[in-house]
Each structure stands twice: as C-alpha cells, then as structure tokens.
C-alpha cells in the first residue's frame, strides 16, 4: 500500500484563492467537458460514466451509471443534486460547493444532457450560506456564459438549473426525504417500493438523485474518458475520492486520494496526510465512513480505503469521513453524543427509530453521568435490536429509511470494543475520563 499521486479530479483548483470564479474556471479548462459532451450523443455520455464505474459519492455507493440506466422513460424527468451534506464529520461537499461551484454546475449540465432532463434542482444544505451564494453566483454566470439555459453553446440542448436551499434537517440527505422537502413538505422518507425515485420521484415523475461529489467528477470523466477514470483505483472502487479526516489528527482536512491504494494507516499517520495523532497519544478507535458506520480499532488500520474492502471488514466507507479517537477518549461519551444526534434528527415517522433513539440516548446519558444500571448494556442492545433486528452488518431494518438502523452502529461498536469502560462507568458511578 502506498500514497499514490493520481490526477486531482475534483480538487485541482483548490490551490487558487479565486477557485470559485468563472474567470479561474475558464482559465483552467472549465466547461471543456461540457462542450465535448454536447458533441456526443447523450447515450454515449452516459456510457462513459458507466465505463468509469463511478460509484455514488453520497454514502450508499451505488454506481451512478446504473442509477441513470434505471430512470423510467417518461416525457418529464428530473435531476436532483443532493448537496444536503449532514452526516457528522463529513465536510467534502461543503468544500466543493464553496470552492469549485462551476465544476459542480458543469457536471450537472453534463448529467442533464446525458439524461435528457430539462430542469435540475440543486438542493444545498441551508446552513451552507456561503456555498448557496457561490453556487447561485456560478449558476448566474453559467447562464450568462451560455453554459446553461436555452441552446447551450449553440448545441440545441436546453436545461434550467434551480438552486434550492434546505432548512436544517439531517433526514433530508436521504433521497426520498429530500424530494419531499423539495416539494415543500416535512422531510419524511418515502417507502421503497414503490417510491424508488427512478420510477416515482419528484412530483411523481422519474427522478435521478445524485450527490455533489458524484456530479463534480463528470467534467473530468468526459474530458479524459471513462476508461482513464476506471484505470484508477481497484476492483469496484474506481477513480479518486474525497476523504474528510477529522478528530484527533494533526492535519484534519479533505484529501483526494486514489481509491483502495491508500490505507487508513497512511491517511491518519502519513506526514503529507493526517500527520499522526497529537500529543504523542495512541489510536483508540476510528469511524471509517460517517457516524452511521460501525467503528474500527487499531487492528483494522491497515485496511485500504475501498468500498468493498471496508464492507468486507464489517463497516462501510459511507460518506468518506474518518473520525479518529485517541486513547484519552471516553468511548461511552463519544457514542452517547452520536446517539444524541440521531435522537435529535430522527424525523419521527417510524416508531422504532423515533422512540428507540430517544430511549437509547437517555440510557447512554445515564451511564455517562454515573446513573447507569447493571442491566443497561442488555437494555441498550435489546433496544438496538428492535430497530435493527439481529444487529448484523449490513443491518436489517424495521423502519422506512436507513437512519434507524444507523443508530445501533456506534452503541454496538462501543459496547463490543470497550465493554469494560461501560462497566467501569456503571460500577464507579461516573466517567473515569473526567
């Protein structure tokens, strides 16, 4: 394993302070991919994406090309871009919308052309005020530049892009909840089947929902060909990917790395990447793909950053965010905070998630604050089992969406890896780390 030096596919403009401007974008090859795409037939553009084997970068990792192919034929179809990045410790789309909004817009128009969609909604997390302004400015500039709107670059293809602000709800990152929210309602996920967006999506019409990072890869893929993208990485995990590294590391940040080639060890410890753990402390545990993912310990640190590799080891690469915890971290407190998050963000639609998350949070709180009871560990696992029967990975679910079965991940991991710590909290009536 090694840190390779792949082309910067989505972060090439970050060294420039004015990376968000049309001027910089055009000076660095901007909108060339779109111009090229417009000379191809739409099916050929989609074929390049299929060849690239681009896995969706939102969290589920579903191949974008296959998602596109599933879009039901209909006179009206929609493309919706998911920029509602809210999985805790994930901050890559935040970077892309603020720092390279034109790349996103170009990717969106390429996708719209491949899918022959005439209206696109870019749903951006409401808390990204600057990102919303930057993307809206880029959309305005793209219209003026002829890259958006009617008869794009004289090709005869027309598409409108609407920037839509969210209003603060984690659940709206779930694609069907996002569509509900975009229709002006509460973000309640829709049940699948029948409400697969590709069949019944926005306003009941077939809809493709793609992540911001997924879209941002498209200009490069069209410029260099799907095969060049597929040549990077290994197996099903092709190309590069943004990894958001946070927690106890010297250099937290977003790193674009070739898929599979780099290990978690490299990411956390390499001087050019995470730079190791501060204060000379040791690694206790890390979360490999957002707080919905089960935790890993030092034994798994040599695993490569690849979707299937992480899945085979019992967790997920998910949203590409890695949280590092050093050996001074209280596992109970960390998993309690994550549980509190799910409890606050459960939309309330399904009983096991709505009620279960609240109970789990209360039990976790009382353990951390010294009120824990001997039977609490069994009680926690029993409540988790009601949300995700069997506590397997990937989880079974008793809820409409996957928020519910994500709740047990941190609790299950913490109990499994640090059972003794829970027992000390309960026996000694408090947190040993305080």
């Amino acid at each position, binding site marked *: 394993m090694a840190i390779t030096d792949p082309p910067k596919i989505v972060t090439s403009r970050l060294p420039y302070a004015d990376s968000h401007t049309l001027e910089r974008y055009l000076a660095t090859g901007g909108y060339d991919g779109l111009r090229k795409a417009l000379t191809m*037939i*739409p099916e050929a553009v989609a074929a390049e994406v299929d060849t690239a084997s681009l896995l969706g970068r939102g969290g589920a990792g579903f191949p974008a090309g296959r998602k596109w192919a599933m879009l039901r034929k209909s006179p009206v179809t929609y493309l919706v871009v998911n920029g509602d990045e809210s*999985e*805790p*410790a994930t*901050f890559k*789309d*935040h970077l892309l919308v603020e720092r390279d909004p034109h790349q996103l817009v170009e990717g969106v128009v390429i996708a719209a052309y491949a899918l*022959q969609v*005439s*209206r696109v909604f870019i749903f951006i*997390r*409401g*808390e*990204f*005020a*600057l990102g919303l*302004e*930057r993307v*809206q*400015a880029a*959309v*305005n500039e793209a*219209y003026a530049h002829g890259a958006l*709107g*009617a008869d794009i670059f004289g090709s*005869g*293809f*027309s598409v*409108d892009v*609407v*920037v*839509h*602000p*969210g*209003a*603060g*709800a*984690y659940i709206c990152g779930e694609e069907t909840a996002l569509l509900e929210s975009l*229709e*002006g*309602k509460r*973000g309640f996920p829709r049940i699948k089947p029948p409400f697969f967006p590709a069949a019944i999506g926005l*306003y009941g019409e077939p809809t493709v929902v793609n992540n911001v990072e997924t879209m941002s890869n498209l200009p490069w893929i069209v410029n260099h060909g799907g095969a060049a993208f597929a040549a990077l990485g290994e197996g099903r995990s092709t190309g590069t990917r943004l990894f*958001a*590294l*946070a*927690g106890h590391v010297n250099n*937290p*940040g*977003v790193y674009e790395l070739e898929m599979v080639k780099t290990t978690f060890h490299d990411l956390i410890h390499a001087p050019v990447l995470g730079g190791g753990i501060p204060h000379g402390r040791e690694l206790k545990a890390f*979360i490999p793909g957002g707080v919905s993912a089960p935790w890993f310990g030092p034994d798994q640190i040599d695993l490569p950053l690849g979707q299937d590799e992480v899945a085979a080891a019992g967790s997920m690469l998910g949203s590409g965010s890695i*949280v*590092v*915890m050093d050996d001074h971290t209280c596992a109970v407190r*960390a998993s309690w*905070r*994550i549980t509190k*998050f799910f409890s*606050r963000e459960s939309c309330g639609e399904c009983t096991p998630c709505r009620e279960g998350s609240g109970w789990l949070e209360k039990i976790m709180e009382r353990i951390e604050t010294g009120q824990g009871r001997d039977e609490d560990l069994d009680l926690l696992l029993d409540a988790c089992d009601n949300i995700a029967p069997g506590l397997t990975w990937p989880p079974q679910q008793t809820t409409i969406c996957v928020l519910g079965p994500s709740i047990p991940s941190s609790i299950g991991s913490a109990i499994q890896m640090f059972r003794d710590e829970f027992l000390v909290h309960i026996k000694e009536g408090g947190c040993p780390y305080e």
Partner: protein
Amino acid sequence: MTDQATPTPVGAPRRSGRHGAVQPSHLSSERLTRARELMALYPEPRSALIPLCHLAQEQDGWLTPEAMVDVAALVGVTPTEVLGTASFYDMLHTEPVGTHVVAVCTNIACLLGGAAELLEHAESSLGVNAGGTTADGVITLEEAECLADCDRAPCVQVNHRFVGAQTAESFDALMADLRSGARSEDIPSHGTLIRVRRSTGLEADPERVAAERAAMAEAQARRAAEAEAAKASAGGSGGAS
C-alpha cells in the same frame, strides 16, 4: 363529536389557503415580487414554501405568524400547513430569536476538539443556556449538530456564516464584535441567508424542449442510419480492400 360546528360547504372559499381569499399583507412588496419569482422556478408552487420561509425570516429575523399567513396564501396551502412544515426544520424559527444566532457544534468531531467545554464557556459568558437569548436580545445561543466544518473544530456559525475554530478567548472577542457591529459586513443579521439573487428566469420552456428533443432524436436517427449505410458499404467493398 356532538358539538360540531357547521361544516364549510364543499367548494366554498376558505378564509385562507388554496383559494387565495387572503391577500398577502405582511411581506414587503419587494419581497412579494421575489416570492413570485421564486415560485415561478418550480412546477408546483408549494415547492417554494421553504425558500419563502427563508425570505420571511430575512424580513423579520424569524418566521412570524403573519408571515406564515402570507406564505400560505402565496403557495396555496393553509397557514397551519406552513407551520406544520416549518416547525420540522431547525433553521426556521417560529419563535423570536436574537439579532445573531450563534451555533456551537458539539457533534463527534467537535466534541473531540473541545466543543463541550466551549459551549459551557459560551453559556456562562453569555449568561444563557443553549436555546436561550441574551436579555438584550442580541444573541441566541444554540447547540448545533454537525455543521460540516470539522477540520476547524470546535466549529461555530453565526447566522449560518462559518467563523472558524473558536477558543474561549476568541469566542468572547467574536461576541463583542457582534455587539459592536464590527462584523456586520461579513455576517448579516439572522434571517439573511442568500445575498446572491438569481439573475434569470427559466429558459428551457416545455415547447422549446419538446422541439429540441424531437430534432435531436431525428439527428441521432440520421447519424445512426448513416453509420449503418457506411458499415454496409464498407462490408460490400470489403473484398476489394
């Protein structure tokens, strides 16, 4: 169900809602114009409900009952439906808030970076618990969920503008700046979310798109036929080459 009020006859205009019996009267005329521009971007007006709530917050700093009546009349739902939707979302405040809403993230990455201690400091230095507003009405303090700025932990936002990682000292300085107005350029008061307006309406009207699609399909069929013919002629002359 014995003391039921007389039901409204089917089809009769309601006091407000879908039939537009109530004219918007709270939002300024400039914002009403913008509201109608926003609604025009969506196939169904209700889709503009959340953007319109943001617009109302821009005017009043929070989502007032009067503004919800206007939003309801504009998008064609009842005010109750606006409240029922808005109350689902953290950013839409159906109770008054301070001029500045200060959000301290305490989720996992920030927790590891000392966010719980920062929030404790913020509560004691401002004299309010998370969720509360200072007596002078300037600052509302919130404990936020992950704001996606995790490499600058503990992360703080003021009115949804990122202000970078904060220490206790820098936090106090920031609060002083908010009170003195020193940050009014880069941090507009709460409610103002997107200062960049959309510069154009929709351009891809359905008739135009239908014509384009037809032309494109025709061109594709022609190109396919030409390719087919070229292949056939290449196949026919294959023996000679």
